[in-house]
């Protein structure tokens, strides 16, 4: 499929709209790509994409790309992000994975704090932990172990692939959090679109 080469200005407009977190006005687009016939470029891009699965659309003077509306059935209906495990849950999961089979009292002894009832429920609901019989001591405490689904999710061949204490120490993972984060910058999450508008 060949046609006339696409003008550089149009390509730049296309990339700027695509890379922006928020829909852009023609004036904002011009701040990225320099002055030119933004409106003409937008029309050309929209026409070029019209037959495809991605459309360039205008909403209230702002432009953005979106999935063609007839393909909306592919899209997520409910915007439900998987939730992050709580600190307590991920620690509990780690302890079960490293020490299994292990009772709740043993988990608490290792964590140094009590484990809320819901924590183990969450891990079982996620399918990463399951009950594994009882320890034959007074009180017969229930034991927990990790599941095959756990290994799959975390990309492990077996529990033996978990780094040992020495490995963790060498990797810097036994340091207090603040030390480990030192000298490490995170993206501040400011998107270019707002900058352009503010500039």
């Amino acid at each position, binding site marked *: 499929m060949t046609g006339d080469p696409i003008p550089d200005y149009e390509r730049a407009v296309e*990339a700027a709209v*695509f*890379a*922006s*977190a*928020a829909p852009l006005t023609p004036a904002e687009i011009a701040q990225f790509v320099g002055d030119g016939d933004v409106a003409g470029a937008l029309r050309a891009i929209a026409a070029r994409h019209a037959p495809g699965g991605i459309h360039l659309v205008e909403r209230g003077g702002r432009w953005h*790309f*979106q*999935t063609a509306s007839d393909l909306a*059935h*592919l*899209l*997520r*209906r409910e*915007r439900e*992000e*998987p*939730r*992050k*495990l709580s*600190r307590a*849950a*991920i*620690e509990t*999961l*780690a*302890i079960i*994975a*490293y020490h299994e089979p292990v009772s709740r009292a043993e988990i608490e002894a*290792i*964590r*140094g704090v009590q484990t809320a009832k819901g924590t183990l429920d*969450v891990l079982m*609901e*996620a399918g*990463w932990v399951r009950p594994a019989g009882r320890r034959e001591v007074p009180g017969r405490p229930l034991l927990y172990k990790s599941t095959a689904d756990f290994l799959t*999710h*975390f*990309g*492990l061949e077996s529990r033996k692939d*978990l*780094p040992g*204490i020495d490995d*963790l*120490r060498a*990797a810097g*993972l*036994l*340091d*207090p*959090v603040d030390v480990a984060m030192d000298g490490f910058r995170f*993206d501040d999450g400011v*998107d270019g679109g707002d900058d352009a508008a503010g500039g």
Partner: protein
Amino acid sequence: MDGAAVFDDWQMGSNVAAERLQIDIAGWEGPLDLLLTLARNQRVDLKAISILELVEQYLAFVEQARGANIELAADYLVMAAWLALLKSAMLLPKEIEQDPSPEEMALRLQLRLQRLAAMRDAGARLLGRDRLGRDVFARPSPEGVRTIRRRLWDADLYELIAAYGQVRARTAPALHVVAARRVMSLDTALQRLSTMLGLAIDWRDLISFLPPEVSGDLRRSALASSFVAALELARTGQCELQQEAAFAPLYLKAKA
């Protein structure tokens, strides 16, 4: 003890050596890194470098660092010892049987340098690529596709092992190791300086007030503390200070 001679020595540590050989240990990641830097200064292919020249440069560097009272980490000294061995082996007449042979030792060093250089180069080329989020950009807020298998909870391997590391760090018996860092405290310097000033009649170089036996970091600490102590004594009217020019010797005398 001759104050002027000591001062020359001190000045060399701060100025002369810095110009000549850039004795800046913090800039190197260990002896192999230093050797690679020296090898690259030969401006030839790493396959064609003169190992003997390289060894001599390294040993000269270590000597200079010692002369300037710069404390070298143990691994620099281990490398120096090994290179000194290599050098003497290379200079020995060929007939003498050695195991391993000097050629073999030299080749081994050369291979290691080539490997480090290759990986350093590879790292630079990787970083120079069109990186996602810097040079090329993905769609920042995609709609998301319909989930095949609903996963309510999310966590990755890094989070898992990091959490375990933190649990273990938190619950491990606290073991505090204070790194040995020998310093001369301001109080000590003040006491030492005012005592010694009482004995001196004439102008004396600040350097001559330092304990003669100290070297390295401790000497630097003693110099800094004594300088501050001198300022303090001058402020409280116990001594006078005199200096001809910046970086010239600083002279002290008890106030009459």
